[in-house]
């Protein structure tokens, strides 16, 4: 949110002096909470914003790797191979994807993002041999043109859905939900429904888009199986079909996605980013990525399809360590949204003055719904979007993707693995009891996993 609609803090007292004055901030009613109440009272509508959950939840930071030593030996950094490639969708599709890094770009719509941002994502991803994904708004020619591997989302709204683009896609992702809002539909506010966006979505220009949260022509896993059958028939069984779920009951949802015939399951944890969602939804619905992975992996293992139906995990992936931890817990690949936008230039301090004018600050800006992004990414304003050079931004993304991959490889080699997929839960320990229980790896220095039988 922005603080434009609420009183600014008392003038003349710098925040660092408040404690010295003996003022005590309430843990329950902290300043952000007070600002939320004031905003609600002033406007009468709930706060809609972008980004993901901002509250602290157990995460990859709460896990550590056990490097090799006496009982197992490490691989040499520059000589011994540690492959990062991944094949996605070879269960049923005759044309699976073969990516050079397990870090993929998550679905973000043209509409939520500017055309330049979409092009930059395509350029960056293609440069390192990974995939990018459309979003709730259809496929643009720029995006198809710049993306070597393009995943086409099939969402409840079906904005811009058509069989020509479906046949052009390298994979199809049926979206049931998103980690930021499991159970919620797409949202795009009027500021971003320009003529082009409206045309692609068949909506009147400038309206606040309402969209469905359930698919219009199927409900439940039995129908989904028939729906997947239809998409396979239309694409002559060539194209891999993913099913994306927002993490709430990932054990059951993963099992049902497998039963319905998915080639790949995408699980997005509650920290996952969004372009526009009610804050109350972002912060209070869904479970952390860390808790979701072992549940999804358990479902795959019980059905005997772990590594055959690939698992892509997203929601709060920032570093190569996060990538390696997700993979050690059993993911085949990961997807990034927020981090990719930051690599393009989102929340760049060079726009500090403009963020401030919008009532925010570099590092805090989350008003993706507003369309006034100084960095030219989450906007449809021609002047603002022209600030993002798709070539330079694509280069930054490619750099960042390379770093993520190399970091993950560094860790995997230290654990003695010749492929990122050889990382395993046994390589991990947890720093906190919560993370230990969720990730199902022992608390560091113990053999204790809360919730797993004896203690």
């Amino acid at each position, binding site marked *: 949110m922005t603080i434009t609609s609420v009183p600014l803090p008392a003038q003349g007292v710098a925040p660092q002096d408040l404690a010295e004055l003996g003022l005590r901030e309430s843990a329950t009613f902290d300043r952000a909470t007070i600002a939320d109440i004031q905003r609600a009272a002033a*406007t*009468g*509508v709930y706060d*809609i914003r972008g980004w993901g959950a901002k509250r602290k939840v157990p995460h990859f930071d709460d896990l550590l790797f056990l490097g090799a030593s006496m009982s197992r030996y490490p691989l040499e950094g520059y000589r011994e191979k540690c492959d990062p490639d991944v094949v996605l969708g070879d269960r*049923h*599709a*005759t044309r699976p994807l073969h990516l050079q890094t397990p870090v993929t770009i998550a679905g973000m719509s043209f509409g939520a993002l500017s055309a330049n941002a979409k092009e930059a994502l395509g350029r960056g991803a293609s440069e390192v041999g990974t995939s990018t994904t459309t979003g709730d708004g259809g496929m643009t020619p720029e995006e198809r043109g710049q993306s070597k591997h393009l995943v086409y989302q099939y969402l409840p*709204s*079906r904005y811009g*859905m*058509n*069989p*020509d683009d*479906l046949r052009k896609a390298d994979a199809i992702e049926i979206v049931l939900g998103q980690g930021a809002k499991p159970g919620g539909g797409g949202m795009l*506010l*009027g500021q971003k429904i320009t003529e082009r966006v409206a045309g692609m*979505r*068949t*909506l*009147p220009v400038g*309206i*606040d888009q*309402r*969209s*469905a949260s359930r698919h*219009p*022509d*199927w409900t439940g*896993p*039995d*129908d989904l*199986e*028939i*729906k*997947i*059958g*239809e998409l*396979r*028939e*239309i*694409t*002559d*069984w060539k194209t891999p079909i993913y099913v994306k779920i927002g993490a709430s009951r990932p054990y059951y949802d993963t099992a049902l996605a497998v*039963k*319905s*015939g998915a080639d790949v399951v995408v699980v997005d944890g509650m920290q996952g980013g969004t372009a526009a969602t009610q804050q109350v939804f972002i912060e209070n619905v869904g479970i952390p990525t860390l808790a979701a992975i072992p549940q999804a992996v358990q479902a795959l293992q019980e059905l005997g399809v772990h590594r055959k139906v690939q698992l892509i995990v997203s929601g709060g992936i920032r570093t190569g360590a996060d990538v390696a931890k997700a993979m050690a817990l059993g993911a085949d690949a990961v997807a990034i949204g927020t981090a990719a936008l930051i690599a393009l230039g989102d929340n760049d301090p060079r726009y500090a003055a403009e963020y401030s004018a919008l009532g925010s600050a570099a590092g805090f800006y989350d008003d993706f719904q507003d369309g006034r992004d100084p960095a030219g990414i989450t906007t449809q304003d021609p002047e603002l979007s022209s600030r993002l050079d798709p070539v330079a931004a694509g280069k930054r993304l490619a750099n960042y993707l390379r770093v993520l991959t190399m970091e993950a490889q560094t860790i995997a080699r230290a654990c003695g693995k010749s492929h990122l997929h050889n990382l395993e839960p046994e390589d991990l320990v947890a720093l906190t009891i919560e993370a230990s229980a969720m990730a199902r790896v022992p608390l560091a220095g113990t053999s204790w996993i809360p919730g797993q039988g004896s203690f």
Partner: protein
Amino acid sequence: MVTLTAPEVPTVDALTDTTVDLGVSSVRELNQAIHNAVDGQSWTVTNPGGKHSLAVGIDADINVAIEGHAGYYAAGMHQKGNVTINGNAGVGLAENIMSGRVHVTGDASQSAAATGHGGLVVIDGNAGARCGISMKGVDIVVGGNIGHMSAFMAQAGRLVVCGDAGDALGDSIYEARLYVKGTVASLGADCIEKPLREEHLAELAELLAAAGRTDNPAEFKRYGSARNLYHFHVDNSTSY
């Protein structure tokens, strides 16, 4: 639930008039053959037996006649050609149709012509719930009644109902135009009755004629969006 496995893809000789007996051939063979088709060819499908995904993804000016009942998603994502089902159709008939024409002589189940972007869908009998849900430009003519939640979030296109409409017609509707000859059990949020002017009578007459119907356009009522939900607003909070 059955586990889907990739079937072998046989090559079917493209004849100009082909009969495919689904008692013998597979759905995969049928769809592969019509995907390889060229304009002007015709298919007759016998023994459809309510199978799913019949004649999906057509992308050529061909004619397909299905002699019997079809399951889910018959003529899904249809483009350019003509599909006639001499029987009933299951859920999601002609879903996301882009152009061309799909005609069902019997009844259609839920979500007929869902999200259709163009073309014409004619249902001589009744249609179930959610007929024309999220329609985006398709024209739909239903000879009988339609079920509840039809034209939910309908964005564009025209829905003509010669019988009655169920509850919550046109809930959260955008710019689609709805014409109903019989009664409407109830209107959904933001859907209102609107005057039937000359241009509406003319387009209605055209749609009825295209569907081969003789109903009198003057006997219909028109429904559409009040456009009150086009912007998030405090006063609409009970509708969200």
